[in-house]
C-alpha cells in the first residue's frame, strides 16, 4: 500500500453521541449506591452479600438456569449415593494477598461451612468431601459457602456504614476486570439513590418496584434477580391465634402485587420461593373473608386491634402496611399502622434468602421470622425430599406466627454508560458480577 502522508482527523466532535462498540473499554470508576450499611466486609454478615461477591469466590457458581458452573473448582464428581464428592481446583489461582490458593486453604474454608462433613485435601488441587448422608444439594451449598478471597476486586477502603472502595485485582484468574475502581456508597435511601441516578451522580442503584416504570421511562437499564426477598408479617407473642389467622385470611395479595408492586416477584403464602421449592403454589394465597370475619367476630372487641410496624427504609413498606390495614378492616379487624414502633404486635419485614439449598434457606427464614425450627433443618437434612420440606413449611406456618406475603426480586437501575460484557451482572440470588461491567464514553 502507499501511504506517503497522513491527515489525522480533526478533534472529535464532543456533541456526537458515541455508538456502542463491541469491544469493551477498560478503566473508569463505577459509582454504586445501596441501602445496606454493613459494619464489616464479612462474608457471614447478612447485609454484606453484594459487596462480598466482589472480593470472595466459591468453588462453584450458578448460571442463569441455576446450574452449577466451575469457579474455583474446574471439575467434580460424586459417588452414586452423593455422599462422597471430589473437586479439582483451578490451577494458578492466587489469593488477594498474593499467595497461591492451596487445597489446604480450601479445605479449611469448607470445613467451617460444612461442619457435618469430613473434608480432606490431597496434593495441590484435590478436595474430598465425605458425609454420612447424601448431599444432593451440595453444589447449591458450595455456591454460597466456603468463600475465599480470590475475587476480581480487592477492597481498598472501608468506612463502616458509609463507603466501600474496591480496585481491580490485576492478578485475577479470570482476567483483569474492565473497571479500575468500584466506589460504593452505603446506607443510601431508595429515593436518594434514584435521584442520584437521574442526576448522573450514580451509575448503579437499587430501585423499588414502585419506581420501576419511572426508571425505565428515564432510559435507565433495569436488572433483576430472581425472587429472593420474602416480605412477610411477623407476630410477636401477644396476639390471639384467631386474630393472626383472621388477618392472614383477610389479605388480598393479588391486588397488592398488581397495584403496589407492579407485578414484580410473586405473591406467596409460603416461605421458600417457588423456584427454590417447586411447591410454593400449594400454599393458597387467596383471601377468605367470610372465614376471616367469622374468626374476628369470635374475638372480644378489645382483642380485634393490633399495631403494625415497619422499617421506613424497606421497599414499598408503607404502601403495603396501609393496604394490610385496609384489608383487615374488611374482616372486622383494626390494624393501626405505626412505623418504627418497637412495641408493635406485628412487623412487616423483608428477609433475604441466604442460600439456594432449601434446608439452610428454610432454616434461615424461620430464624429470621422467629419461627420454631421444624426438627432442626440444617445441612444434614439437605437430602430431604420436596415433600418433607413442604411438611416442614406447613408446620412452621400453621400457627400463623408469620404470614408470607410476597417474594420480591432485587432490582437495580443502571445509567446508560454502564455496559456489560456477557450475562447480566446481577445473579439469581442478587449477587454482583461486576467483573463483566465496563463504562462507555465519559462521565456524565
Amino acid at each position, binding site marked *: 500500500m502507499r501511504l506517503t*502522508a*497522513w*491527515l489525522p482527523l480533526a478533534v472529535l466532535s464532543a456533541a456526537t453521541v*458515541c*455508538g456502542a*462498540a463491541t469491544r469493551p473499554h477498560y478503566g473508569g470508576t463505577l459509582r454504586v449506591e445501596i441501602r445496606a450499611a454493613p459494619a464489616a466486609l464479612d462474608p457471614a454478615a447478612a447485609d454484606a452479600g453484594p459487596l462480598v461477591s466482589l472480593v470472595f469466590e466459591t468453588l462453584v457458581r450458578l448460571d442463569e438456569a441455576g446450574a452449577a458452573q466451575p469457579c474455583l473448582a474446574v*471439575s467434580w464428581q460424586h459417588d452414586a449415593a452423593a455422599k462422597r464428592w471430589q473437586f479439582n481446583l483451578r490451577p494458578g489461582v492466587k489469593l488477594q494477598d498474593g499467595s497461591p490458593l492451596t487445597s489446604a486453604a480450601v479445605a479449611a474454608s469448607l470445613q467451617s461451612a460444612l461442619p457435618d462433613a469430613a473434608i480432606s485435601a490431597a496434593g495441590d488441587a484435590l478436595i474430598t468431601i465425605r458425609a454420612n448422608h447424601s448431599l444432593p444439594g451440595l453444589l447449591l451449598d458450595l455456591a454460597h459457602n466456603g468463600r475465599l478471597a480470590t475475587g476480581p476486586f480487592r477492597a481498598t477502603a472501608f468506612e463502616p456504614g458509609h463507603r466501600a472502595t474496591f480496585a481491580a485485582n490485576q492478578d485475577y*484468574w*479470570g482476567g483483569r476486570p474492565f473497571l479500575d475502581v468500584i466506589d460504593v456508597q452505603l446506607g443510601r435511601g431508595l429515593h436518594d439513590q434514584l435521584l442520584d441516578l437521574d442526576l448522573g451522580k450514580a451509575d448503579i442503584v437499587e430501585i423499588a418496584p414502585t419506581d420501576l416504570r419511572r426508571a425505565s421511562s428515564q432510559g435507565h437499564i433495569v436488572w433483576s434477580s430472581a425472587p429472593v426477598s420474602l416480605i412477610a408479617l411477623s407476630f410477636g407473642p401477644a396476639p390471639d391465634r384467631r386474630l393472626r389467622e383472621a388477618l392472614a385470611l383477610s389479605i388480598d395479595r393479588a391486588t397488592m402485587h398488581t397495584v403496589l408492586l407492579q407485578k414484580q416477584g410473586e405473591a406467596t403464602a409460603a416461605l421458600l420461593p417457588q423456584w427454590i421449592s417447586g411447591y410454593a403454589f*400449594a400454599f393458597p394465597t387467596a383471601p377468605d373473608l367470610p372465614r376471616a370475619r367469622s374468626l374476628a367476630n369470635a374475638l372480644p372487641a378489645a382483642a380485634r386491634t393490633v399495631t403494625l410496624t415497619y422499617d421506613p427504609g424497606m421497599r414499598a413498606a408503607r404502601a403495603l402496611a396501609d393496604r394490610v390495614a385496609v384489608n383487615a378492616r374488611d374482616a372486622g379487624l383494626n390494624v393501626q399502622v405505626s412505623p418504627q414502633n418497637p412495641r408493635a404486635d406485628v412487623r412487616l419485614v423483608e428477609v433475604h434468602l441466604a442460600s439456594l439449598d432449601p434446608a439452610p434457606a428454610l432454616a434461615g427464614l424461620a430464624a429470621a421470622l422467629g419461627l420454631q425450627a421444624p426438627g432442626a433443618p440444617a445441612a444434614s437434612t439437605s437430602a430431604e425430599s420436596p415433600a418433607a420440606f413442604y411438611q416442614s413449611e406447613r408446620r412452621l406456618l400453621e400457627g400463623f406466627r408469620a404470614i408470607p406475603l410476597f417474594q420480591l426480586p432485587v432490582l437495580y437501575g443502571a445509567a446508560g454508560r454502564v455496559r456489560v460484557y456477557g450475562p447480566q451482572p446481577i445473579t439469581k440470588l442478587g449477587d454482583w458480577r461486576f467483573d463483566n461491567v465496563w463504562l462507555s464514553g465519559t462521565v456524565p
Partner: protein
Amino acid sequence: MIAAADAQIGRFRTKLPGRVSGLPLSFVYPAACDHDGLSPLILVLLAPIMSGDMGAAARDLARMVADAVAHDPVAVTVRDLSTLGAAETAEIRRAFESELKAPGQPAAEVQLTISENLTQFLLVAEVHRGGERQVLLESWPRTPAASTTAANDKPSRVTIEKKLLWEQDLPILDVAQTGGAMLVLDANRVLLVRAGEPQSAPIPASHPWPRDMRGRLSAGNSTFTAYLPGTICRGSAQPQLSLECHDSQDPWLLAPGAIAVFTPDRNLFQGHLDIEPGGARDLPPFYSAAPADDAWIFAGDDGRTHVYTHAFASSWESGGGGDQWGSDVAGVQTPCGARILATRPTSLTEPDAIQLYEIEPSGGRPDPAGPALEFSGPITALWSAGNSATAVSRDLQTGRYAAYSLAPTCGS
C-alpha cells in the same frame, strides 16, 4: 386449610440419581473460565433417566392419591409449571391416570401440578374431597438440558464467500494458513491442523489474560508468530509443531509493513504505529485497523470509525445514527480493489453481522456493498488475511466458537 398428610410422609421420597452402579454420576470437565459469560463444556453422565423416574413418580403419586381417597373414583386436572415438553407432560398424565381408574362418579377432585425447582421435578397433587384439601408430592431429579446442535447460519445472497475453517469450545483468537496446514490460536495453545492428528503446542501464561482475550497470527511457509497480550510466541510448523513464548511488549503486526503497540491492560492498540512507507504515527487508541488501498480505517475506542487517506483533505468518521460500525474492521484485497469488512456495534449477547464496504478514492464515507453477512452469534475476532479475512463467531445456542474465512466475490 391445609390438611396434613403426615401419615404419608414415610412414603415420600426423592429418587436420587443413583441408578448407575459404580459410575460417578456427574463429571464437569476442565473448562475455560466462564469469565466471558460462556458456558463451559459440561458433560453429565446421569442415569438412564428420566422417563423411568418420571413415570415411576407419577404412578407412585397416583397410588398415594388412591389411598387418600379410599380408591374412589377421582376427576383429574393437570397443569404444567415446569420446563418439561409436551411429550413428557402427556406421559406423566398417562402414568398418573393409569393408576386411578376406579369406575363411577368422581368422589374427589385432584389437581395435578407438574413443577420444578433447581434440582428436581415435582408432581404435586392437591386432593379436594368434601371440603378437605390434602397435598401430596413426588419428585425426581432434573437432568441437564439436552444438548443443542449448532444452528446453521442463514443462507446468504452475499458478495462474501463464507467458509467454515475450524470450530471448538474455547474462544478462537485467529486462524492462519501455513504451508498447506492451518494454525488455530486460542488462549491456551496453538493447534496445527493438517492430514492426520492435529498437533498442539501449549502457550504458557505467565500472567492472567484480559477477559475479552485477543490474539493475532502471522504465518509464513513454515514459521509463524502468535501475538498475545503481553506475550509473543514464535514457532515452526515443520517438521513438527514447535513454539517458544516470552513476555514481550513488542508491537503486533497489523498488516504487511504496519505494526502497532498493543496495551495488554487495556486490550487495545495504544495508537502509536509504524507504517512502511510513512513512518511513525500517533493516533487515538484503536481496537482494530484495516488497510484499503491508499486509506486506513481505524475502529477507535471512542466508538467511532476513522478513515485516514494519504493525499486528500476529505476523511470520514462514523458518528451517531445508522452509520455506526463495530470495533472490528479488516481489509481485504479483491480483484476489483480493496474492501473493508466491519462488524456492527452490537453487544456480545446478540447476533452480529459483517458488512462489506467500498472506500471512495477521494476518502469520505465508505459505501456498503451488498447485504450484510449475518452470523448466529457475536463476532469475537476479525482479522485481515490478505485476499480474505478471518472472522470468529460464538454461537449463542451452543457457546462454541467457529472461525470462518470470508472472501469477497466482487460483482456477483
